[in-house]
């Protein structure tokens, strides 16, 4: 059962929105993202990367959530952290020339106990909007903290 009983962290951060920046998406970025993952579909690669027909692969917003600096939730548990999981909800296509603005918030902190003992999960939700203020993607990331096996 998941619970947040007894987890010590900065609860004032829960639900508070933090701007994480504005990012321009270029045709070259889309093309490089697609090529690096072995994509062969021309709707992502394009004949020429800046044509109007090119769209970005659905998870491209992920490159902007990597290594962002989030507020420290001051979690008082564990000494080992992992990236546990992620979901990406695609709302609108991202195209060359789009300017995306992102904000993130701490959505949930809870614990579970498994074979390796207690684990505490922190879930962050990040919203990406384009220059027309349309939501293009919702990205949830789950990070887990546990104690090293002695």
């Amino acid at each position, binding site marked *: 059962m998941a619970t947040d009983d007894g987890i010590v962290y900065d609860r004032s951060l829960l639900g508070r929105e933090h701007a994480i920046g504005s990012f321009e998406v270029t045709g070259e970025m889309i093309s490089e*993202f697609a090529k*690096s993952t072995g994509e*062969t579909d021309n709707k992502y690669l394009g004949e020429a990367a800046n044509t109007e027909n090119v769209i970005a692969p659905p998870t491209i917003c992920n490159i902007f959530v990597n290594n962002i600096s989030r507020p420290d939730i001051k979690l008082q548990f564990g000494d080992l952290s992992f990236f546990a999981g992620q979901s990406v909800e695609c709302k609108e296509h991202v195209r060359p020339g789009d300017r995306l603005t992102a904000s993130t918030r701490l959505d949930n902190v809870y614990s579970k106990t498994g074979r390796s003992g207690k684990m505490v999960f922190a879930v962050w939700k990040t919203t990406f909007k384009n220059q027309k203020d349309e939501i293009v993607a919702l990205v949830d990331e789950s990070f887990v903290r546990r104690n090293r096996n002695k």
Partner: protein
Amino acid sequence: MTTENLYFEDVELGDEINPMTRKISLEQVIGFVSVREPNPSPSRFTSEKIAKAEGLPGAIVPGAMNIALMSQLITGWSPTVSLKKIDVVFRQMVLHDKPLKLTGIITDKEEDVEATNIGCDVVMENEEGVKLVIGHAEFTLPSKS
């Protein structure tokens, strides 16, 4: 990628999505992380030495790249697929230069007046059949009607 245009009516529960195989090289990972940060600093993703110093067995494929591969399994099935959501759990480290097999199986199928919705479970496993990344995706296909 299949060239066949799939429609909602063509898909049944239990259908398998065409499997995809990949082996991710250091050059591909550098290409991926460079999209955002040209000339990236060495990290657990791009340096064996740093990865091993962090207690990992070797340089690993970034989670963001793994979810991109999982989504490619879905979008590559047919040009008519439109991915709505993908949700994955990272169960094991994905190492460079190891053969990976990605598979999917249809688990849900719904249609209402506004849209179609298809659900599928997706898995990335290594040569030994160990599940490295598991998840669920939702996508739409056009209806013939």
